[in-house]
């Protein structure tokens, strides 16, 4: 089945220690998104890639970076995690502007704990 895969599902890192979360997709979608979701809140968009074009939300901290080496993979790098970065990180994909309904397909998420 075509899907969005996130690894690992649970990640524990130390305060200030860089961490990378990964996302892959078999949908061949040209847009990939990263969201941060804190407890009992709606997902908050951090950034997205439209093909190779990177689009950062205005309020996304510089501590968060992303890489998309090819269509299938996208990475979220947190350079110096703070306690406030503990959250669920969701990856999503969509077919983009030509996709019709602009529907996003979500992965299962990675829950990040910062100790």
């Amino acid at each position: 089945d075509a899907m969005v895969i996130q690894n690992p599902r649970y990640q524990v890192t130390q305060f200030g220690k860089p961490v990378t979360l990964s996302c892959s997709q078999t949908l061949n979608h040209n847009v990939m998104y990263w969201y941060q979701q804190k407890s009992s809140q709606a997902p908050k968009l951090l950034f997205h890639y439209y093909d190779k074009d990177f689009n950062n939300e205005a309020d996304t901290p510089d501590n968060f970076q992303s890489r998309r080496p090819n269509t299938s993979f996208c990475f979220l790098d947190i350079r110096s995690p703070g306690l406030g970065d503990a959250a669920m990180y969701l990856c999503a994909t969509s077919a983009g502007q030509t996709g019709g309904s602009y529907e996003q397909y979500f992965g299962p998420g990675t829950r990040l704990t910062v100790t």
Partner: protein
Amino acid sequence: AQSVTQLDSHVSVSEGTPVLLRCNYSSSYSPSLFWYVQHPNKGLQLLLKYTSAATLVKGINGFEAEFKKSETSFHLTKPSAHMSDAAEYFCVVSLPLDMRFGAGTRLTVKP
């Protein structure tokens, strides 16, 4: 600009009774509208979507929603709640590359 308001942060129903989760939206254009469900520690699953076709949209697990342009509403309903429906529900308004989430409604189902 577009936005979405979920009118109830928490809804509690008894198993077997109807479910109503309310959503109002604002958009300068003709958006697509979605309902997603999220079970604890899981990703978001699409329940249903409205994309300017039929105003009554049927989704998975017996859910449906009606798009009412005059009321700018897209309320989610289900005739009979099941225990497995207990989850967080998000109403979403979307234009290309701009998806806005409501704050979410937590549905509790009592036995």
